[in-house]
């Protein structure tokens, strides 16, 4: 892969990330004139405690002084203490990160695989019964807020059948041994993963279908057919690799939505990850927590976009081999 392309993309991502860091300061220190006003226990604070808190939150001195303190603390990954639990924010986040990574990772993988498959098939056989059915279904999926799926699954699957737990990460107080605990976790993950997958399946399928249809008119498909290739080979070797290219960029952009989906999905299933932490922080006006969560979410999306740029380069020789 051309080194310049790589370097350009990495530098771009770092610039965006520093942009987010600055923007974050702007949001929490300039738009919000008095962050401490959101602290619920503030009326009970003594003057001393109040001053300690102001110092700890880096609210002393001019805005520039505050900015320097803030940037330093970001580099130390020190985001202060949660208003709610009074524990360090970083610890709160790292403790919940694996659960969310697992949930989002599994469902993103599923969504991409199923969505791209359906979109490919629908676009290739445009106007067929499969296309009409799947596109209508995709439109409805796209129009449904993912947490409503969660509520439906809870009410009509978990509630009615009792096959799945209604929430949490694992059965509380139970120990089934290593394999048993693993299965127990997976058991708890089924409905949240299903919710998040259904929530974004529609848009991925629609994106891929559009790309496929745009590819259908390309001359190289006629060339491939002329060579005597089967229809399925023309599709998989020639149409799909090209149709994937615009999809990769669009999917990268839409991953910002998935993060939003994780917040509501975890809320519905009381799944103790970063999403649920976000929902709690909203309800508790927990500014330090929200600030850090916003940074983490942005960093995750920037990273995902960077990965997408690499995938794009791997798929497209015009980018990969450009000098």
């Amino acid at each position, binding site marked *: 892969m051309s080194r310049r392309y790589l370097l350009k993309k990495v530098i771009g991502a770092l610039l965006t990330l520093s942009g987010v860091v600055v923007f974050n300061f702007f949001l929490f220190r300039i738009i919000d004139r008095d962050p401490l006003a959101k602290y619920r226990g503030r009326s009970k604070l003594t003057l001393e405690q109040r001053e300690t808190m102001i110092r700890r939150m880096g609210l002393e001195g001019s805005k520039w002084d505050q900015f320097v303190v803030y940037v330093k603390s970001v580099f130390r990954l020190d985001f202060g203490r949660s208003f709610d639990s009074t524990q360090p924010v970083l610890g709160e986040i790292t403790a919940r990160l694996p659960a969310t990574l697992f949930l989002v990772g599994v469902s993103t993988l599923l969504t991409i695989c199923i969505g791209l498959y359906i979109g490919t098939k629908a676009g290739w056989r445009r106007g067929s019964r499969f296309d009409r059915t799947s596109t209508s279904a995709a439109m409805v999926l796209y129009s449904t807020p993912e947490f409503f799926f969660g509520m*439906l699954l*809870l009410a009509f699957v978990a509630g009615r059948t009792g096959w799945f737990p209604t929430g949490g990460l694992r059965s509380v107080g139970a120990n089934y041994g290593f394999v048993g605990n693993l299965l127990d976790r997976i058991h708890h993950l089924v409905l949240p993963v299903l919710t998040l997958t259904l929530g974004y399946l529609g848009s991925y399928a629609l994106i891929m279908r*559009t790309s496929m249809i745009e590819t259908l008119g390309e001359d190289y498909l006629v060339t491939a057919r002329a060579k005597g290739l089967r229809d399925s080979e023309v599709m998989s070797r020639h149409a799909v690799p090209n149709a994937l290219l615009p999809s990769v960029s669009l999917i990268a952009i839409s991953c910002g939505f998935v993060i*939003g989906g994780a917040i509501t999905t975890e809320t519905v299933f009381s799944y103790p990850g970063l999403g649920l932490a976000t929902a709690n922080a909203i309800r508790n006006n927990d500014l330090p927590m929200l600030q850090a969560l916003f940074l983490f979410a942005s960093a995750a999306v920037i990273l995902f976009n960077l990965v997408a740029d690499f995938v794009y380069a791997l798929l497209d020789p015009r980018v990969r081999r450009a000098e």
Partner: protein
Amino acid sequence: MRESGSTTVRAMTWARRRRAFSRVWRELRHDRPGFIGLLLLSGFGLFALSAPLIADRSSLLAASGRNNPDLAAPSSKFLLGTDEIGRDVLAQLVWGSRVSLFIGLLATVVAVVIGSLVGLAAGYAKGKISAVLLAIDDFFLVVPFLPLAIVLAVILGRSPTTLAIVIGFTSWAGSARLIRAQVLTLSERAYVERARALGAGSWHVIVRHVLPGVAPLIIANATLIVPTAILTESTLSFLGFGDRLSPSWGKLLDGAQSSGSITINAWWYFLPPGLCIIGIVLAFTLLGRALERIFDPRLKGR
């Protein structure tokens, strides 16, 4: 003489607009998904307008449910049952349609105005201004908009109007990019170049020549922003923003979730608002995609 000249020009412009409108209308009638979207949308519009006929506004007040049973199943008195404090769900649903539509539409106006201004400027201006605007646009495309909206709403306040502005502020980046691309193609067209060569000022060229060219695109794009704005609104409301006493559909779902209506399967509480959200989002999406197809013939057959 001059005046009569400009009148004829105006009349011609209006005649052209009328023709364009009737062409769009004719094509829309033959575009099945688009027409379904339009019908669905008119249905929701009527629903929202008829709110005072269906239920009195006072039935949204917490006090109104005091004498009613909590989470009661649908009956002849409460067609869609009651919520956890005994309020009529149907009343909240029909008044909620106004809240959801209001936030969705206001957010779209905000997003389209910012997006158009940035897009027009970035497309029309050259050099540094354009580069800076593009960088800002890129930034807003990458930054995850829901977390951003959450942060802004926490800081700025939780009222429906604030929510609408926050949503609009976080969702203009896509349209700015789209409009910029369109402006770039248009500025190369002969009539724009001619206008510029004749010494027309930037503002004149933009308003008279470029804006009419991008207007169809802006309309189609706006129709597609409304559904995402409504979805974002319901997500934010579900997460605790918004007004419990004048609930949007998303806020109703929040109430249904936190009141435990799901565990006791009080479907009349969570099913109707959820289905309404799906319906309105679907309606705008179908219509918006149809308008895109009509305005941009390259998209035919999608």
